[in-house]
């Protein structure tokens, strides 16, 4: 084990991705606290300029691995490249963003080198010489403090927004090129066509008032009370993913990481628990109201006003009140 922290830098279309910069910012903080060195690791093809840019951050070095085979993400070749580097360098910690690509990659890497992996962390604490990582579970209802009891490197993926890129400190780090022999790696997964989901009819990004409904509505027939409330307010209707998955509302009304991002004046969340994938799509609303039977629902952590209660009582009463006024 060496006293190094490695951060994986993801990129696409010639840009470093924000979650990677967040990971780097967290890495910087951890390096300061421990006195460990910090190294940004970037894989790809013809990405010299990106490595140069990373070198302007406060890092001890930038490890640059270029290979034609690394031009696009592939689990087999990325896993092989990282396995070789981690096995040789034995860093203390290997950080990366909990993005779709790393959900696809990190567990494969953990299995390949037989090392521990903690996913979707929202933070860490230092306890003596040890790190305790904090992650969410049960759809963000509960947190867990976890600790590695395994050999280094420890692999950690970080939830988007766990830290801010504003924390990132500038400095200068040398770019070190690393060559790997990846010629023998067989790419089993063949990428085919990629496409953007067809833009739906509903664009909620400009909506001023939104009434959003979650699984708490229980079935499609019950949506009527939500429609009535939306009408009384003159609001658009939106939904959490399970409502859309069940086909109670169309996909273009889904808010969240795999749906739309909105920033209305008012977001009234009815029967939505407040999982991170939903929150990222609506947290910039000016005023958030949550109606939920569960006082511990995480939606109350970001709401302006909360009503702990049954939406089947509250929503019709609210509609009535709004109509009176």
């Amino acid at each position: 084990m060496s006293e190094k922290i490695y951060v994986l830098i993801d990129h696409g279309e010639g840009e470093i991705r924000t979650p990677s910069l967040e990971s780097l910012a967290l890495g910087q903080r951890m390096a300061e606290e421990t006195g460990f060195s910090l190294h940004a690791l970037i894989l790809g093809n013809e990405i010299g300029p990106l490595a140069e840019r990373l070198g302007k951050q406060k890092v001890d070095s930038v490890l640059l691995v270029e290979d034609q085979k690394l031009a696009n993400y592939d689990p087999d070749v990325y896993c092989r490249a990282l396995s070789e580097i981690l096995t040789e360098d034995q860093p203390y910690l290997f950080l990366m963003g909990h993005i779709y690509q790393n959900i696809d990659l990190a567990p494969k890497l953990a299995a390949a080198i037989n090392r521990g992996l903690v996913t979707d962390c929202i933070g860490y604490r230092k306890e003596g010489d040890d790190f305790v990582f904090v992650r969410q579970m049960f759809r963000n209802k509960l947190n867990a403090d976890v600790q590695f009891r395994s050999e280094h490197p420890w692999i950690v993926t970080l939830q988007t927004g766990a830290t801010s890129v504003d924390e990132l400190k500038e400095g200068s780090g040398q770019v070190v090129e690393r060559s790997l022999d990846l010629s023998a790696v067989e790419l089993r997964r063949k990428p085919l066509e990629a496409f953007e989901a067809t833009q739906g009819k509903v664009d909620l990004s400009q909506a001023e008032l939104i009434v959003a409904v979650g699984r708490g509505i229980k079935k499609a027939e019950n949506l009527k009370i939500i429609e009535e409330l939306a009408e009384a307010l003159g609001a658009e209707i939106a939904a959490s993913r399970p409502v859309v998955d069940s086909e109670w509302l169309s996909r273009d009304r889904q808010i969240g990481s795999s749906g739309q991002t909105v920033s209305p004046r008012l977001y009234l969340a009815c029967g939505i628990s407040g999982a991170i994938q939903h929150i990222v799509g609506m947290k910039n609303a000016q005023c958030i109201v949550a109606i939920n039977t569960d006082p511990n629902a995480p939606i109350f952590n970001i709401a302006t006003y909360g009503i702990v209660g049954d939406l089947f009582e509250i929503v019709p009463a609210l509609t009535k009140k709004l109509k009176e006024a």
Partner: protein
Amino acid sequence: MKLLTCLKQIPDRDTRYEINAAGTGIKTSDLTFEISECDEYSLEESLKLREEHGGEVAILTLGPQRAEKSIRKGLAMGADRAILVRDDEGKVTTPHAVAKVLAEVLKEEEYDLILTGTQSDDWSYAQTGVLLAELLGLPHATIVMEIRADPAQKKVKALREMESGWFQWVELPMPAVLTIQAGISQIRYASLKGIMQAKKKEIRNVELSDLNVDLSSVPEVEVLKVYFPVVEKKAEILQGSTAEVVEQLVEKLKKEAKVI
């Protein structure tokens, strides 16, 4: 096609959990249990593939005896048979260890497609399926929203959900592991006939100790403590009867927040 769905039983999603005495998990004594959401979608997908290509659908679960109830539901939906690896004492804790045990069972016979959920609704690791693929030496694709199998060519096309509304098709040789995302299709209800038939279907119980699996080499990650998140910015909770809270809310939205 030989299809297998990994099915995890989880505590009812709508329950208000309580922390257990050790502080390292939730109290399970008074809970009801159900199938983890993605797994129900993944089973549905297996059944659809069987309808299209023929073959059989098996269910694999690692869990305590009570998991039989969820397995029965899967059999009632239409799965042909099931394997339950019994871990009544909850010895297998990390996703790595779970994958290792599942892999051991899956080595017994070859399946064309092994489906898991993208992420479980309880511990939400988002790891098990991919770990399993690597331990079995199989290719994989994650967060899958559509499957097109070609058993004759031993190939499968999977549509991966990507960030910000993008999707990508990938092609894999079979056997392969796919992790299924919620919403891939509409989950069927078990028919009365299905429920009756399920009673006669086989659930093979395997004891953990009967498997030749060494968990001592699995990287250990310990859960020290489980707790309700401490929040910095808590909502102003409105108190009173329904009429009162509704009145307060309208008042506040108009006068305080000035949003309506």
